[in-house]
């Protein structure tokens, strides 16, 4: 059971306080999208063995959505950050690079 710090209220939240929301930093495709682009948006997800960016909601706390950068195998947490962004902040990317030189995730490395 993970512990993630909510970047809004600062609480070190038990996983039971949180609800998961899958992969972070998806770009929404709407009515103008091609079939392929929309299909990818709806169904295709990263499934890395290693560094992952994911969405969580502090559902039984302050109610805010946030993002977590986490290693799916070691459960190391590189940081959490507010959801109002389209890409991971630099300090978190730097931290990941330090811990996992050569990591990749989409083109955020």
């Amino acid at each position, binding site marked *: 059971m993970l512990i993630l710090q909510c970047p809004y209220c600062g609480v070190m939240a038990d996983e039971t306080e949180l609800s998961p929301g899958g992969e972070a930093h998806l770009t929404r495709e709407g009515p103008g999208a091609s079939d392929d682009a929309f299909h990818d948006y709806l169904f295709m997800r990263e499934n890395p063995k290693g560094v992952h960016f994911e969405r969580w909601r502090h559902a039984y706390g302050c109610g805010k959505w946030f993002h977590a950068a986490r290693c799916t195998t070691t459960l190391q*947490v590189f940081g959490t950050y507010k959801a109002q962004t389209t890409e991971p902040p630099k300090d978190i990317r730097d931290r990941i690079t330090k811990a996992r030189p050569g990591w990749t995730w989409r083109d955020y490395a």
Partner: protein
Amino acid sequence: MSYRLQDRGRLIDRSDKITFTFDGKTLDGFAGDTLASALLANNQMLVGRSFKYHRPRGIVASGAEEPNALVNLGHGARMEPNQRATTTELFDGLTAVSQNRWPSLDHDIGAVNAHLSRFLPAGFYYKTFLYPRAFWKSVYEPFIRQSAGLGRAPEEKDADTYEHFNTHTDVLVIGGGVAGLTAAKAAADAGAKVLLFEQTAVWGGRSPVDGGIIDGLAASAWVDRTVAELEAMPNVTLRLRAMGAGVYDHGYVLGYERLTDHTPDKDGPRHRLWRIRAKQIVTATGAIERPLAFAGNDVPGVMLASAVRDFQENWGVVPGKRMVVATNNDDGYRTALLLNAAGVEVLRILDAREGGGGELMGEARNAGIRVDCGRGIGKVSGGKRVKHIQICMTNGTGGAMEEIACDGVAMSGGWSPAVHLWSHTGGKLLWDEAQAHFLPDFSRPPTGADGQAMVRTAGSTSGPMELAAVIQDARSAGADAANGAGFKAKTSKRPSVETATEAPMLPVWQMPGRADYHLKSKSWLDFQNDVKVTDVELAAREGFESVEHTKRYTTLGMATDQGKLSNINGLAVLANALGKPIPQVGTTTFRPPYTPISMGAIAGEARGEIFQPVRKTPIHGWLDAQGADWEPVGHWRRPYAIPQKGESVHDAVMREVTNTRENVGLLDASTLGKLLVKGPDAGRFLDMLYTNMMSNLKPRRCRYGLMCSENGFLTDDGVVARISQESWLCHTTTGGADRIHAHMEEWLQTEWWNWKVHVVNVTEQYAQIAVVGPKARTLLEALGGMDLSADALPFMAWADGKIAGIPVRVYRISFSGELSFEISVRAGQGLALWEKLMEAGKVYGVMPYGTEALHIMRAEKGFIMIGDETDGTVIPQDLGLDWAISKKKEDYIGKRAQARAHMMDPDRWKLVGLQTLDGSVLPDGAYAVGEGINANGQRITQGRVTSSYHSPTLGCGIAMGLVHRGPDRMGEVLEFPGTDEKTYRARIVSPVFYDPEGEKQNV
């Protein structure tokens, strides 16, 4: 025969005699006994029958790893199956019943399976029972169900109470043997807050029995001293009878404390589930001795060598007067020496190693015990207890060199570290060639949120089996844990340890090494699941190369003991059969819990009324007093119907529909979700959420809206009212309020975070009462206070005002097709308004109605219900709701998905009404069948029933359903086979059965 010695038994109190029963027989024991030791003291060596072949089985082990001695404990509301006799502390009045036998333990019919064993090899149930097909249901399945399983499930509600306990600690040490005590002391000395768990009732683990000198003290005295030191430290909490059940992510650990199992008359919870967050975890869970695989190694009287000496030293019982010890390592000698010292005759030590053992072998010979090296057991004979053994060459084919009469065998196949807890969260293992076991790979430990090691092992769990190395390992584990938790471990004097030096062990996976099929087919690997060497070899031959597949195919390592005894031996046999090295075959996955924990502990306090909170509307109590028949809707309870005295529920529903259609009915609609959406961008936001336009809704007006997921599927519906220029009130379904609120928040926070919108869930702030029926307006006018005429308040409008002096908001909306007013009132005044309506309505025949009447009335009108007509695969277009989908809007959630090829396919199943030809009620959920069969030999389906009721208004059955190209097929008759063997015939009709012009609601 097994019996009690007079001068051994450090844990029993001979002055405190205890009476218990086993299979109805009254027996005696002493305080401090386990059920296992007390059974042995009474010469009860046969304790159960094996799972598959019903072979007689006795006690093999002395602790949590025991595979055979499982009993039904207690009776009635305190009956519990599969309890290990070895971990059950004896108490006065204990009742135990053996399992897996009929009619009795001594005379068991199922034992015939043993003679059929040739026909019941690994995976037999996948092979034997396929043909003839028809036999499966009537013959094979009942037979398998009858013989499957271990104990019987209890039938009564558990009479005991249980609790959960949450705690945080710096260092959690699991295991109270010398290693755990040492590690706990090291961590506590550094100032860390330490929690120490020991699963048994006593501290010290194996050391008081196995001996050794620590700091000049005998091991048991050193244990007493260390426990006293720890107890005196304010930063240390010690718990006996507490097991580390599972280690999970980020230092979360479940502990299982058995509080009153040994004193069932004591008040308070029986078990406590500890939910622990530890910065660092030290597992000092010791090691588990392995059996040797020789023919007849499951005959009662054959026990693990460590268990034999545990029973003797701890409880003063021995399995026989004339014992043989078979071993492949030095530790087995400890048993021989202790037996000999207690005056038990040790006929022979059979050491599999040509060169024999180290110091302890010399001691044994000096004590006059005969040691034969390079020898093993070829076969044990005896049915319900050991009678003879055949001695053979370790590496021979099993030819008997000698046969000796004896009544007990102590076997030692070496020791495996109990790495379970290390492995639960992904700690990796290494194969240690010298000791022939898996040990923790310290370069790949379970890690915490900081990426650093979170679990450490101490003592023999780390691999070393000799006392000095155990203590040294535990000291550094405790210090590392303290450092890992942010403390600074002190350097302390290394304790002096005296113990015998040992010779290397010899891996022996089958005894004798070149045994023939016959011997191997009687050599048990997994006692609990009746898996023999030949079964694993068969699995390998049949292509089950992965250890996980072999486990499932043979059942090796399944059930309550999860392979604690059998794992390594089974892996080794598999590896040999595959011609691969053992580490390449690997282990099966270790999963929590370490040993089974009670369902009660998992549930904790959450049972009965407090299992889940129940949400109640302000009118709940009134309805309950009227005898409402409740049904759960989400966490709410809603009245299905409100039967009058002596009336059946069905009759009540019919009456409620008719009365509402003819007079006036009241519905408690308070559970409907109410979400207030407010802000400069609220209109724009709602246009994205709903399929239709909400931004152009005029204040004081209502509009029915549909909400879809981004996949295009219909997920909720409800009436939206525009309250002011910047605020809208969105009604959701009863079950949907929280979900839709979360849905709105998600889009606002993660996609359109610059939009200025606030959403507040005000569901519980208001009670809502639907006043429905042709006399609804008359009734409200009788209470007075508002102009509710069609001109003042037309259909789909709302108005604020007062009714009977109570401030209200009245929505003129209808889910029944009748003239209908939904009156929203502050929650605190909901009941008052309801009572005034009931009182004033008497003269108009007012009656409350429930959810079933609501359902019937909406179905008569062809209104869909989320969850009936939708199931997560239905788009609004399937339901003929195109009128509620805006063509003007560029975008809304789900719009792009609804343009995908499959969504536009004319071959989709679409909503229609269904009317049976004979007026009967179609079975809900029934499928309409078409011509032909599909690839699986099943009838082609072309539709299904989504809602079905008897309509008292029409006097016949009505239904809605989704049918392939349904709206194009009006008038066609479909066939619906029921599960009652009948076939129902129904005609496709319009889903609107009642008042299609809407004249009733527009008055």
